[in-house]
Structure formats: C-alpha cells, structure tokens
C-alpha cells in the first residue's frame, strides 16, 4: 500500500481538466438566481441527490463524479447526506407515483435559496415511462425545475458541465 501511495504522490494527479460550463445550461439559468442567493452561496454548492424512480443508470454516472478522475469536490461542489444541508436537489427518474410525496417532502426540507436540477431523460421528459399509471412524468410536473441535464444517462462530463454552469451563475456578480 505504501508503494501505491508513493506512486500516487509522484505520478501526478489522475484528475482530468473540467469541461466548460454548458452554454445552454447557462442561458437557462440566467436570471433565475437573485443577488442575495449569490452572495450567500459564493462558489460552493451542496447537492442532495434524490432518485425519484430512475433505473439507477443516472446514479452510476453521478457516483462517477466523485471518483479521482472527475473529482467533483475540487470545484467546491459536494454531495451531502441530508436535504437540510443542501442548496441543490439533483433529481433523477420519471417521478414514480410511489416516490412523489417523498420527493416533495425532501424539497420542503431543503432550506432556501435552493435549486432543482432534473438529471437524465426520465427526469427531463418522463422518458419511456411517461404516460403509464405508475409515473407522474417529468420532474417539473411536481416541482419547479431550474436546470435540465438530458442524457440516458448523462455522461459524467455532461453532469459536470451542467453543475459548473449552476456554480458559475450562482457566483456571478
């Protein structure tokens, strides 16, 4: 293990350069954040992830953001365990009706200022599950959505670009 640590110390970081914040995402967010929110958040975001009925594909890619290659925490963005600690809810899935109330309660438990990001095609549009008896459809039918990151599932770089856009917008003067 010592050898591993030495190699890691001398080998340079494995972390890759970040993608540029997504332009469509920046445009979507512009004007959504008021000045008070910007002052309070600075350049950090705490994210609470909520699976509202995804197939767990999105979760796998969100997990990847924490690995040393994407290393989300270098941007001041981190995943937290409770909505009470969160600025952002990152919601996946076509909102299964069995999860609707839990999602609303999680949103209510998140202190303002807060944002909601719909992650993945199911959360954005309902995907293949729209129209069934068991799903509500897109997240915006349940809660107001500030940012949409499409993909099935979105790649980690897409997620990163979207979240960086959120961070840039919230830190902008």
């Amino acid at each position, binding site marked *: 293990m010592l050898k591993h640590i030495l190699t890691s110390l001398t080998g340079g970081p494995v972390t890759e350069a970040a993608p540029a914040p997504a332009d469509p995402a920046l445009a979507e967010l512009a004007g959504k954040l008021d000045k008070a929110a910007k002052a309070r958040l600075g350049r950090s975001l705490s994210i609470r992830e909520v699976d509202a009925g995804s*197939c767990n594909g999105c979760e*796998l890619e969100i997990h990847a953001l924490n690995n040393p290659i994407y290393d989300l925490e270098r941007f001041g963005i981190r995943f937290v*365990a409770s*909505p009470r600690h969160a600025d952002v809810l990152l919601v996946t899935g076509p909102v299964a*009706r069995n*999860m609707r109330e839990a999602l609303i309660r999680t949103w209510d438990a998140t202190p303002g200022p807060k944002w909601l990001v719909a992650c993945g095609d199911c959360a954005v549009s309902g995907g*293949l599950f729209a129209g069934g008896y*068991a799903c509500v459809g897109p997240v915006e039918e349940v809660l107001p959505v500030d940012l949409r990151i499409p993909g099935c599932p979105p790649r980690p770089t897409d997620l990163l670009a979207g979240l960086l856009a959120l961070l840039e917008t919230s830190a902008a003067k």
Partner: protein
Amino acid sequence: MYGEEPLFGLLNRIGTPVEGHQPWPRYRLGRDGWLRLIKGLAGNGWSLLGLWGEPKAVHAAFREDFSGDVAVVSLDCPQGRFPSLSAVRPAANRLERAAHDLYGLVAERTTDPRPWLDHDAWGVRRPLSEQPAAPVPNPGPYTFLPVEGDGLHQIPVGPVHAGIIEPGHFRFTANGETVVRLEERLGYVHRGVEGLMQGRPVAEAARLAARISGDATVAHSLAFARAVEAALGIEVPARAVWLRALMAELERIANHLGDIGAICNDAAFAFMLAQTSQLRERVLRTADSCFGHRLMMDRVIPGGVAADLPERGTGLLLELVAELRRRFPPLVAIYDGKASLQDRTVTTGFVSTELVTRFGAGGHVGRASGRDQDARRSPGYAPYDELAFEVPVLTEGDVNARVWVRIREVEQSLSLIEQIVARLPAISRGLDHPSVPLEAGRGGEGMALVESFRGEILTWVRLDGEGAVTRCHPRDPSWFQWPLLEAAIGGNIVADFPLCNKSFNCSYAGHDL
C-alpha cells in the same frame, strides 16, 4: 436425488403440455394438479425461478437443481384466486404480493397478504387486471410486522437515503447497537414496466427492458432478447452471440470493481474506492469506445446486437485486460492484508447455506454461501459452452466471502474477455449488420435464463402474430436476495448495515419494476 420424483415425471402426470413454449416446456395444471405440485415442492430440491400473474392465470417456473431441468407451470384462475406457494417456497411470497397488486390475483393461505408494490399512490388498484378498480378512499398506513420486547427501539430509514442510492424503506428494530430485526418495504421505484411493455413492438419493449435496472442493462437486454428469440425460433448471427458475451463480461467487471471499492469505503477505507473507481472508469471508457455507450445500454437487441466493434476494438479490449491484470492484484493484496478491513468484513452479515438454498438466491449472494449455481453454466447458453471459466464458490457466507467471490469473478471475466477476443467469429458474408430482422406474422412464448453480475435473471415473454409483446415478465435476481438481507443483518450492529447492504447490492429498480 434418491427416492424423489423427477420434476418432469410429476408434471407429466398432473399437467398437460402447452404448445409453442420455447425452449423449456410449459404445463397447464388444474387446481388439483397445482395442489399436488405444492405437496411435491415441500419434499424436494426444485428451486423456484419465478412466479408471475396475468389477468386470469398464474405462472411459476422451477428448476430441478440436480438435473438442471426447467419447466413452467400455469394455473387458470377465472375467479382470480390460486393456492399460495409461499408456505413451501418463502421466496414466492413477495412475487405473489406483486401479482396481487398488479393483477388482483389472490394467493390463498399465503404467509403474508399485505400489499407490496401498491402504495395507494397510483390512483388505481390492480392496474393490469381486466377491470382496474378505483383507489381506496382512506388507505390506512402500511403495517409493519410487530416486534415486542424490553429495551427495543425502532430506526426508520428511507425511502430517501443518505447516499446517492435508490429509494427504499428499512425499518430496523434494535436493542442498543444490535439489530434484532430488519424489515424492508420496497416498491418505491415501481414504474410499471410490465404494463408499459404490453402491446409494444418488440424493439420498443427492448428499450424498456434495458432500463429495468441500469447497472445490469446488458444482462436484462440479453434476457429479453433471448426470450424473444426463443419464442420466434430465431437464430442469431454467431458474431453477435460472442459480442453479447463480451458486453456482459465488461458489465460484470465494471460493477464488481465499483462494489468492491464501495464495500471497503463503507468500512472507512476510502483508499480502495479511490483506486477501484479509477479502474471502473477505465472499463466504462473502453465500453464507450467499443460500443458507443458507457453502460452499453440498448446495444443488445432482439435478433443480435445494435453495433459491431470498431476496427481497433479488439486491441482496446486487450489493453484493458492487460492493465487490469497489472493494477487489480496489488489492490486485492491490500484488501487481504489490512486488519482494519478484515475486522469489519469477516463474520459480518452471515447468511447460511440452508437459507440461500431455501430462497434460491443466486449470484455472489448464493455463491458466497455455498450455492453453486450459474446460469452461464446451467442451463448454459452460447457462447459459454465453448469457453473455459470457473464459478467461484465459498461457504463462509459473510461480507468477506461476498467480496472474494466478486474478486474471483473479475479474474474469471478478464480471462473470458481474452478468450472471446481471440475467437470472435468474423461477420458472416452479406451481413453488414450483426443482427437478423425479426419476422412478423409469428407469435409464441419464450423464456430465457441469463446470468447478470448480480445473479440469474429470468425473462418470460409472449408475443402475438404482429410481433408485439402481449405479456412480459422480467424477474430480477434481487427478488430472492432482498429477503436474505433481512436475515444477514440480524445480530449485527447498526453501523454494519451499509457493509451488509453493499455486499449484497440488490437492485431496487430491478425489483420494483
């Protein structure tokens, strides 16, 4: 086994075979036959492979573990009632509850009649039955099983958990730090996959199958594709068969690497997760370069595969195998050599061989507790009959054993990828696409058993003459593993639950459908 009646012996006496069910026979039983089947089940080793409903019928699939014979049995239930299997096969209970919630079928004399997938939130009851009913006006709360005793307290967890994880509810009853009982309540991720598949063309239903459980997307797609191909009697191009196995093994390696690291991370050993998550990323990127999608979603389709390897694909795969062979063994040595890790994983979350066998649990959960089953070997499917691999089996039944089964499986899968790359058949002439078109105008029923990284997936499908799905039931391995997690945590401390849970890594989405 001596003195026991063979599965087909009994079924030939009490049932009549149904035409057009491939590749294993299906028998229609009368109510008397069904009762005799239950009696027969009590005294032998036939594993329950699945149980699913239709508006006026119930089906169950069994395997005689000794001979490997597989059969489906069906009972028409015009009154919507059938005698429950749960007393002789406890694994049937949750499947029967699901069949009740979706199709309104009542399991008589069941061990547990509570609803399972239905949380009174759909706005309709028994949505897939012939006559869906209006919702109950004032549904009471879900009743958890009673727990009584001095000094007990309850810890409710979920459906929204602390980590980046799927939703489900766990009700712990603890005495101090020690868990006395865990009860699960699932169904939160129910998206109505079975209902959405009905009436869809095969190609569309395949996209739904790929999203039953995202981490096993290749395996679920493969199970659906093989079931459809069995129903239609289609022969898949040889190269596609081998490419499918290649994707399945890549998926297995990626998931096991992620889980091994995550288990260590839950034992406060974050170093391993940092290392294995890099290896996992390496596998996903190779999958992306070779098949155009990191998780290889929608790449296995009925009739073949959606895309062939690019020209440099085999080279990329061999590089990946070489790199994992170089970087993975030192990590295994670290796992094996750290007392702080072993202290958390050895003897934690024990599941007995007896329990695993009783529930018919597969995958690393079964194999770490001595149940030597692997669908790639029995009943077996191409191309695994031409490949050399071992199925690792341990008997300790603890978290450590489940980690070791995964480690050994990664090694086996690396060897399988090498063998597949070396023997990949060339594309047959005249085919620029490694799949065959599905002919319309033929229907049928088919079933497939496919080994995912988690265990055995059963998919049963019925197609009409137009090539549309009239009924499909995909049964994820998690159905038979979730109940054992309840047993595994008993007697352990609350803080060891994440370790136990992660070492199982059951799918919520695959289970809830």
